[in-house]
């Protein structure tokens, strides 16, 4: 058992708050949800459980790259997100998969509606996160987003945070 038990409600609160920060483009607060050395991955649409070092990642940022990505997104010269995408995130089916010593594995389903440039996209998928359990809350050790689509629709560039 870990240092304390994480309930589904606590995991849901964490994920809902994260979704709100992203939808409101509060990227510095979002980055603060990661521990130092936290990582983020978005798997490719043909991903088949492979280790991310062999194949299958649209995004595989370590903490340094993640900080750089946020820094760029905040720039008005990040043309692909200026103006910003409008996103609306729905999160459900939250499950605690496993509680370890200092971490908890959480899975959830997501639908992200995104509007930009007169186009409309829906991104459907699943999160499988490894969260660090602290006395005062949860933080991302690994944030992994697994799109369900067989292919990304033409124009569905992943310039926002999936």
């Amino acid at each position, binding site marked *: 058992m870990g240092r304390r038990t994480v309930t589904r409600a606590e995991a849901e609160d964490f994920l809902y708050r994260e979704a709100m920060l992203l939808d409101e483009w509060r990227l510095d607060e979002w980055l603060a949800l990661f521990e130092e050395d936290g990582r983020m991955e*978005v798997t*490719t649409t*043909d991903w088949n459980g492979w280790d991310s*070092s*062999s*194949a*299958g*990642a*649209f*995004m*595989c*940022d*370590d903490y*340094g*790259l993640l900080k*750089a*990505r946020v*820094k*760029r997104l905040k*720039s008005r*010269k*990040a*043309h*692909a*997100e200026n103006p910003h995408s409008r996103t609306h995130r729905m999160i459900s089916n939250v499950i605690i998969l496993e509680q370890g010593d200092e971490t908890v594995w959480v899975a959830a389903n997501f639908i992200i509606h995104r509007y930009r*440039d007169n186009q409309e996209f829906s991104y459907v998928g699943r999160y499988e996160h490894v969260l660090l359990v602290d006395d005062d809350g949860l933080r991302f050790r690994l944030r992994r987003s697994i799109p369900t689509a067989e*292919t*990304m*629709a*033409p*124009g*569905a*560039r*992943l*310039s926002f945070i999936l």
Partner: protein
Amino acid sequence: MIDLDEHVDLERGVMSRKVFVDDDIYRLELERIFSRSWLFLAHESQLPKSGSFVSTYMGEDPVIVVRRSDGSIGAVLNSCRHRGMKVCRADVGTTRAFRCSYHGWTYGLDGDLVSVPNMAEGYRNELDMSRWGLLRVPRVESYKGLIFGTWDAEAQPVEEALGDITFLLDTFLDRRPGGTEVIGGVQKWVMGGNWKLAAEQFASDMYHSFLLHASAWQALAPEGADLSEMVFPSVGSQMTSQGSGGGWFHDPTGAGSAVLGPVLAADFTDPAVWERLGEVKAGGPIGCHATVFPNFSFLGAFRVLRVWHPRGPHEMEVWSWTLVDKDQSPEIKDAWRRFASMTFGPTGTFEQDDGEIWTDLQRVSRGHIAQTVDLNYQMGIGHEVTDHPDYPGRINHVYSDNAARGFYERWLELMKTPLRPGQRGNATARAGQEVTR
């Protein structure tokens, strides 16, 4: 027939954007550019053993690239000779045969038809199976790990056809004795924009790099660095030859490579690599940004290869590979993989902004009035040299349209030259194209 000279005047350095939007021009490209140029198919490391295959495209035609039983590499049109269905529906894999899912015609690794269901009852054993194999790509050849194919049986050998661009390719493929390998699979996505927008940009356009991509450079700059104090290089060269081309700055260890971070910068500028490549190549071309005519591009300092598959005049399908030195440690390879996906690819902080531009530029180009206003390809016109002491091809300043003009010169030459009668792909003279194998 379209009068291409009316739309493209390279002596004056002007061009109509009609070439990016016109359906007839697009169809002619599939015939006269893609049916006879050497096209990049795959990297040898993707086909490790007999029976390994990958699916790809030559223009809009799907092909399968296969490692055959004797270890050689071949390619066939991915279309059953019976009713035309794809015989291979996987992106990548290993197999002993390709069996069509419609009626079960089955082909060996070399494309020969080896089995036809109900041969006796249906065909009365009268079908000459030797005449109904998959259509072979007549020429498949490799250059330092890169596999190319062409439908032109009489094309010059690939190394000759690549010509001077091997000078730049070698800085990418021949850094270390063990050669290169693909890491992290192939990323595939569709972007708005004509395929030539990307091909000409990678060949020639270093002009946009620090402006359009300012936010990405800034974000990746070393901690605490103030970009306004970073001096971006303005000294460099650009070469073009046989439609291919590329550009580079003369100080690849400067601001550009600072964004690699210490680990990758140390690999990029490893003294052993520099010694192997020699002072001339290591002093600039090693960091190049280049296109091999018509639609294969690479980025030296980002370890990225890509193909811009044509998908109608208005879209391109991008296929992207990260290529690392085989001799390098797993940690360094992994760091290159992360850096490549952070910069180029569907989530790439550089490429997102290119996609934004190409999508919008393509939209503007649909306008009737816009098509009557010429675009400017005049940068550096008349200042080329063809006897540079260090570099092959036609050379100009890194900030020029030299390689873009070279790209469209080759494009125009091919577009105005019909395929030989009897050559596969000749749409106006099909005689002689009957499959004899």
